[in-house]
């Protein structure tokens, strides 16, 4: 199933026209200066803001098309986002953060926790399981956020500046981790970055966002 975007997204004065096509199992890298609308595009893909015109669709499912009167709510898109500002739930443990999506999906508590534990182990964050999300370092938080996005086995994965919060020392390690996650991810994925070097390592296909 491929993610197809041909839309104009507006936010206040700002307007952005995007034409993208990402196949399942493929990762598209998006680069662009600050203010080029990368995060706005992520929000539109996730369904947090509607497009102004055009359409977003995944396979046969139309997610957003004002002309056809279609809009699928974010909670029904199975489109996981790793936000630039991370947005872990500060009052929950890392385990509960990762299990949150599964629980929302109706997975039983024990099973959700088992799967969350497994996911956290995969991203090398098993020692953080019982820790509260509010006390994590940037790199730790980003690992947990990656686990949280992957746990739901989403149809689309959006990574907004996935390496922004880590210090230079742990950057290569996290980059490898994100790379592996993208490698094994079966849906369509988009990675946003202002750093072309990062994008180059993570994906072969690069789309330059200009507004």
């Amino acid at each position, binding site marked *: 199933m491929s993610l197809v975007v041909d839309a104009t997204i507006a936010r206040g004065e700002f307007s952005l026209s995007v034409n993208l096509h990402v196949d399942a199992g493929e990762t598209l890298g998006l680069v662009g200066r600050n203010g080029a609308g990368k995060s706005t595009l992520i929000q539109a893909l996730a369904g*947090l803001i509607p497009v102004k015109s055009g359409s977003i669709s995944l396979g046969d499912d139309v997610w957003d098309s004002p002309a056809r009167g279609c809009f699928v709510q974010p909670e029904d898109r199975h489109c996981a*986002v790793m936000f630039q500002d991370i947005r872990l*739930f*500060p009052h929950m443990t890392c385990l509960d953060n990762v299990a*949150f999506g599964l629980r929302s999906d109706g997975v039983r508590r024990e099973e959700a926790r088992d799967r969350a534990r497994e996911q956290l182990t995969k991203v090398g964050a098993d020692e953080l399981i019982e820790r509260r999300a509010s006390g994590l370092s940037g790199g730790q938080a980003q690992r947990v956020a990656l686990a949280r996005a992957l746990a739901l086995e989403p149809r689309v994965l959006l990574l907004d500046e996935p390496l922004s919060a880590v210090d230079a020392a742990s950057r290569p390690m996290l980059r490898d981790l994100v790379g592996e996650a993208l490698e094994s991810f079966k849906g369509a994925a988009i990675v946003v970055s202002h750093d072309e070097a990062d994008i180059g390592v993570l994906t072969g296909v690069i789309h330059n966002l200009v507004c």
Partner: protein
Amino acid sequence: MSTARRKSVALTLVASLAGLFVALPLVSVAIRVPWGQSFDLLGSPLIRKALFVSVVSSVIATVCVLVFGVPLAYWLSRNDSVAARVVRVLSVSPIVLPPVVGGIAMLAAFGRRGVAGQWLNDWFGLSLPFTRTAVVMAQVFVAMPFLVLSVESAFRQAGTSLDDAARTLGASPLRIFLRVSLPSVLPAVGAGAVLSWARAFGEFGASITFAGSMSGRTQTLPMAVYELATVDYSQALVVSLLMIVVSVVILVGMRDRWLTGGPR
């Protein structure tokens, strides 16, 4: 003396006068209270009954304020429509409304011939005025705004970014409210609940108008004080002191635990 210095003396003088003006009456209550017999006076049947009505009704009112006020605050914080603005102004207005007007308004709505009251009377044979339920209703009416104001601003401050993250993870609106939004504003909910309880506990005007002042049924502590003021002044003093102490304890507690955000 320099001008600046004279100014600061004048300021200090005015400030002291203002402080004294408020503090003197409160301290005077403590000075005039018949300390020797105050314990006996607190045990009088009239006071005991009123204290019971006050404590029970204010606690129930606070629970109602929480159950209804928190969702209202949430809705207001996520809404900027004209309707939301109208609702906000109306639901917060009891703060500035004369309490007795609140009581009249309650009668107009829930009295025997009230807008809603006549239906309650016709359909269920329910008559609310001058009952204990009326005491609680009047208290909820005047106390709810304190919770709504405090909690709404906390919801606004918390923003929607965590809500958005929860939505992308497939959470329903109710689940987002309970598991994500609400936990992040709990301190404000606590502060609002305490303020609301204090307002409900001290409620007089709306309750006496809508619920009356029947000892053992609807008479709360403030109503008892009012009644005693002309009959048994020293007893009124004792109860007043009790209520002053309660208020001061609450304020001090709020300052340390919530208003300043507490020790870090």
